[in-house]
């Protein structure tokens, strides 16, 4: 936040390139010492984290909106590859798929009718009408929805038991993920924006938890905790097995003097890296253009002083809603990309500490309000997060080296994994306190 005149950061124009060089160096060292497969794995998730951080930065850095439900928008985006790219379950739509959709339409329809009635009626009739429509709508929805769900879930439950997808290319799922997240953001923003700033934080905390619990429990949608495996890879990424079986590939690897198994995994990861870099670059260009346009100046003016921006005739609440929806769409896009990288949907892995607050640390450390800072923060913090898993126990066994073997030492070494939380919290607190503008400050 730039409430006071910023002093130039040390290093001037060279500061950002220098940090990116250091980051590249860290990845290179990782590649040389523990293999390129692992290094590219860290880089790929780092790039996705960078896109996530970019989305959160739009909400926080441009507009000062505190979204604590990032995990929910990531999960919602991750639903898209399942719905779009998985092959449809044979007979699922005939068994109950359409009925499920009709049930959901009834639910949405009765909510819309409630809102409409709430605006039309007055006094006692309003309360009675609203309650009557809600209650009737709910029971009608359950009556249509429940048997259909049962029918769908009983189709080969050990392998399928869900609606399946549309069988379309995975790349197509990425924008759909963005749309899903944007829709949820619109509903939340419409209710919580325009009130106190804390309310958005609390409301998004709620929607985050609810989206994840829906994914965990609605088996007809994405098999819940049974997970969906084998989500098709996006074009043009091939499968390792296919590469290893292709004589042309094996020959080329032999000419390069590389083991074909290692070669195929590295090639697959490199292709993902290429795809992610393209998406990140497009987003970054768009974000930079937007930030430096009159629109971007308006956003920052609103952030820095809402009252004076409102006095200049800007509709603060509507602009907040706009940027909240756009930022969430970017988060949803990254969520969809992450699922197509993993190739599986595991709802139980969506942990708020890992997927909400870690992203926040990335934005704050990188430099809120600066798009390049978010990219740097995303890759750097992800790298540290992964490495801390290795370093933590090592460090702890070094510290406890002199201790006698026993319960205390075992407890300390086992608990080292939780040190990551403490370190992340401390990083957040220290950066907010001593370097609130982050590694790459906003200009």
């Amino acid at each position, binding site marked *: 936040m730039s409430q006071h005149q910023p002093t130039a950061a040390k290093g001037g124009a060279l500061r950002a390139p220098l940090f990116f060089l250091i980051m590249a160096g860290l990845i290179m060292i990782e590649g040389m010492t523990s293999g390129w497969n692992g290094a590219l794995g860290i880089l790929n998730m780092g790039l996705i984290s960078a896109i996530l951080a970019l989305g959160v930065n739009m909400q926080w850095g441009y507009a000062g909106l505190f979204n604590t439900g990032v995990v929910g928008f990531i999960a919602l985006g991750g639903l898209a590859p399942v719905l779009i790219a998985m092959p449809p379950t044979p007979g699922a739509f005939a068994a109950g798929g359409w009925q499920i959709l009709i049930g959901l339409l009834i639910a949405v329809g009765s909510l819309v009718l409630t809102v409409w009635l709430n605006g039309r009626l007055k006094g006692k009739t309003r309360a009675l009408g609203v309650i009557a429509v809600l209650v009737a709508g709910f029971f009608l929805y359950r009556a249509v929805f429940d048997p259909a769900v049962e029918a769908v879930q009983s189709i080969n439950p050990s392998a399928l038991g869900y609606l399946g997808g549309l069988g379309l290319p995975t790349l197509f799922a990425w924008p759909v993920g963005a749309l899903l997240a944007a829709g949820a953001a619109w509903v939340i923003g419409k209710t919580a924006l325009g009130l106190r700033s*804390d309310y958005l934080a609390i*409301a998004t*905390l709620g929607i985050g*938890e609810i989206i994840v619990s829906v994914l965990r429990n609605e088996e007809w949608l994405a098999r819940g905790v049974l997970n969906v495996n084998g989500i098709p890879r996006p074009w043009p990424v091939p499968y390792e097995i296919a590469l290893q079986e292709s004589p042309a590939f094996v020959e080329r690897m032999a000419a390069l003097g590389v083991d074909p198994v290692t070669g195929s995994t590295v090639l697959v990861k490199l292709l993902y890296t290429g795809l992610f870099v393209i998406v990140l670059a497009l987003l970054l260009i768009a974000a930079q253009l937007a930030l430096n346009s009159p629109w971007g100046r308006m956003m920052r003016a609103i952030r820095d002083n809402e009252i004076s921006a409102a006095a200049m005739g800007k509709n603060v609440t509507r602009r907040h809603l706009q940027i909240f929806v756009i930022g969430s769409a970017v988060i949803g896009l990254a969520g969809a990309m992450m699922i197509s990288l993993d190739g599986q949907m595991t709802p139980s892995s969506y942990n708020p500490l890992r997927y909400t607050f870690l992203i926040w640390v990335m934005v704050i450390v990188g430099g809120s309000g600066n798009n390049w800072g978010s990219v740097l923060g995303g890759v750097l913090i992800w790298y540290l997060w992964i490495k801390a898993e290795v370093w933590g126990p090592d460090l702890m066994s070094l510290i406890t080296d002199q201790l006698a073997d026993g319960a205390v030492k075992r407890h300390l070494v086992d*608990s080292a994994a939780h040190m990551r939380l403490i370190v992340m*919290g401390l990083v957040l*607190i220290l950066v907010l306190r001593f370097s609130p503008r982050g590694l790459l400050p906003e200009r």
Partner: protein
Amino acid sequence: MDFLNAIVAILNYVVVPATAYGAQLALGALGVTLIYGILRFSNFAHGDTMAFGTAMTILVTWGLQKLGLHFGPLPTALIALPFGIAITAALVLATDRAVYAYYRKVRAAPVILVMVSVGVMFVMNGVTRFVIGVDEIQFADGARFVISAKGFREATGLAEPLAIRTTQVLTVVLAALVVWALFWFLNKTRTGKSMRAFSDNEDLALLSGINPNHVVAVTWIIAAALATTAGVLYGLDKSFKAFNYFQLLLPIFASAIVGGLGNPLGAIAGGFIIAYSEVAVTYAWKKVATYAIPGFEAEGLMQLLSTEYKFAVSFAILIIVLLFKPTGLFKGKAV
């Protein structure tokens, strides 16, 4: 007879658990609302303060049990509670000195304080896990039931059982005592009155010579006491698991907002509203309906929402209140 059975079933599965849960939520929401009233931000670390306080109390309880100390029919954790509160109060006071005091001095925007509290939440969460681990811990001892299911059935001859656990009675009694003490403190003592003055109008309070540091310190101590008590009661009633306390944050915030942020009476009402709705919506009403309506055969469980979605209930109530009455049912602070 069937009608009595229906009433007993409602008492056993809805009223008793919801009252205990409501009292726990009310204590948690009171802490959130006090911090909001005096320090003017939503404390995201409150759930983990509860977890930390409970973890400390459990450690002391284990120590006492090793020494062979017991509290008769009541859980040993009750003796350990004051120690837990003292340790937690020391921690939050140290946190305030090290972290929050700076932001008060520079008069940072509330949303920055919220974000800082997220950092504090991380650290507290990590410390709790580090100290006591991530596993589920049962630490209730003493007599298990005040009224046992079997005893009730034999005494009344009804088909439906009614079981009231010691921890549930204890929760309600202790919560009532704590609330009474808090209101007495806020309304009758000099410090309490200065806290209310500070909450109503900070500038006027400062002008009339109220020491802000004193008010802030007392607020933190009370919040730590409320959080630890709420956490220990919740842990005794159910079980202790660090992650569950993080998840309690949403119903607690919902309770505080429904009642009106900054309004202690509202926080209590909000806690019970949230708890009763949560339990009533996720309870399978089939049994009650079969008793209450003669000749009625229910098809399903007659459950409005599965228990996995209990957080959706607090969220829905939160959204409704935000849409129609953002200051809460009782008049809360600013919108």
